[in-house]
């Protein structure tokens, strides 16, 4: 069973901008295609390890990065379940 976090964006441009910012801070993130279960889009999402979540969220808040939604994913191979993450004060 694997677990990870996902950041969703309103545009690929925003995804690229946030990726560049988070990569600068050396987070182990990766751009992936947004799972269709989350949005009927062919846009990008950012996959991140949950152990870096606290720090990534702090940076999103501090730099006001344009993240639209956040999810936790759990599952294996092609079966994943997603739960939206509510962030207080955002």
């Amino acid at each position, binding site marked *: 069973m694997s677990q990870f976090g996902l950041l969703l964006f*309103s*545009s*690929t*441009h925003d995804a*690229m*901008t946030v990726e*560049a910012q988070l990569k600068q801070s050396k987070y182990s993130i*990766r*751009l*992936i*295609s947004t799972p269709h279960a989350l949005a*009927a*889009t*062919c*846009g*990008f999402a950012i996959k991140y390890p949950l152990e870096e979540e606290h720090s990534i969220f702090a940076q999103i808040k501090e730099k006001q990065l344009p993240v639209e939604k956040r999810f936790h994913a759990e599952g294996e191979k092609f079966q994943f379940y997603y739960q939206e993450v509510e962030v207080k004060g955002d």
Partner: protein
Amino acid sequence: MMYLDNAATTLYKPDTVGEAMKDAVNHHLYGNPGRGTYDFALNSARLILQTRKLIRDFFHADETYEVVFQNSATMGLNTLLKGLLVPGDHALATSWDHNAILRPLYQLQKNGITFSLISSEPATGTLFYQELEQKLRPETKLLICSHASNVTGNVLDLDQIKTFCQKHQLLLIVDVAQTAGQIEIDLHDHLIDAICFTGHKSLYGPTGIGGICLKKTLPVTPLLSGGDGIRSFDKEQFPQLPSLLEAGTPNIPGIMGLAKGIEYIKQKGIAAIQKQMDTFTSILYHRLHSNSNFTLYGDFSGSRVGTISFNYQTIDSAQIADYLWEHHQIATRSGYHCAPKMHEALGTAKQGTVRLSFSTFNTPEEINQLVSILESI
């Protein structure tokens, strides 16, 4: 061979421009951005993002501006004029303007949009700035202008125009096709709403790439719609810049080449380039202005780009340009330069002018040689 038609396009480019474009095709590294999350697609997407920032910084624009790529300044100007003006609106433009501005306005006129042209002094082509207030109407929405005349090489007093637009809350759009890379363009004061640039002139990039640097809040209706890799089931274009104005696959080799052209200018420095252009203009002016066979057009006391127009006696400008090419392999541009209103103002609507325009690859020796040839006609 001497190439002096750089206002049409720079023929000589830094080697890095062609190398980058060749790499874009031959290295098999650049896919379609925004359409996948494998490395090849992301390489392109990252490169485009970096180049947007390079351009924004080059024009001293902060994050309230966005850069969108278009295939030319003409396309950018069409996008803005047709995407901002609606029936009933009035626009101000100038007699310096290129057909890239004038023809979209004539086209829009058929749809109930009106415009007025600020005219110029007959002798020097200097703009009659006092007409700005006279031609303003309650329904005036924007002012659009060419930053420099592609005929005389004179540069507009942009500060005066910015103040006027700020006072009357008009949108200000500036065509910088003739000035970007030759004089500093500074958007930091937020008084310009959008500039349209082209890659292939004094930015030393390839043809087929240009763009708009515009305020993110500017309410532009897109000229083109189509695929953008986002929200495929939506019936309308994604309403956020840059996607809003970039339907279709971008010109990756062009963008890579343009980035190298801008890096070349940054390395040389705009002040040094401007000084080089002033040297060329000065050689021509000082050797020809007192020769009664030649008429030089424009104002030689103010800010200029490396472009100068002249006529020899009353001879058709096309014949002089042909003579220079046929006998001396000197490439110049005769005729009207797609700027009919400026030629009407200068009184050259029948003769046209011979235009000489320089790049950083020209030398003072070439310009002196050219003048000697002109003097011996």
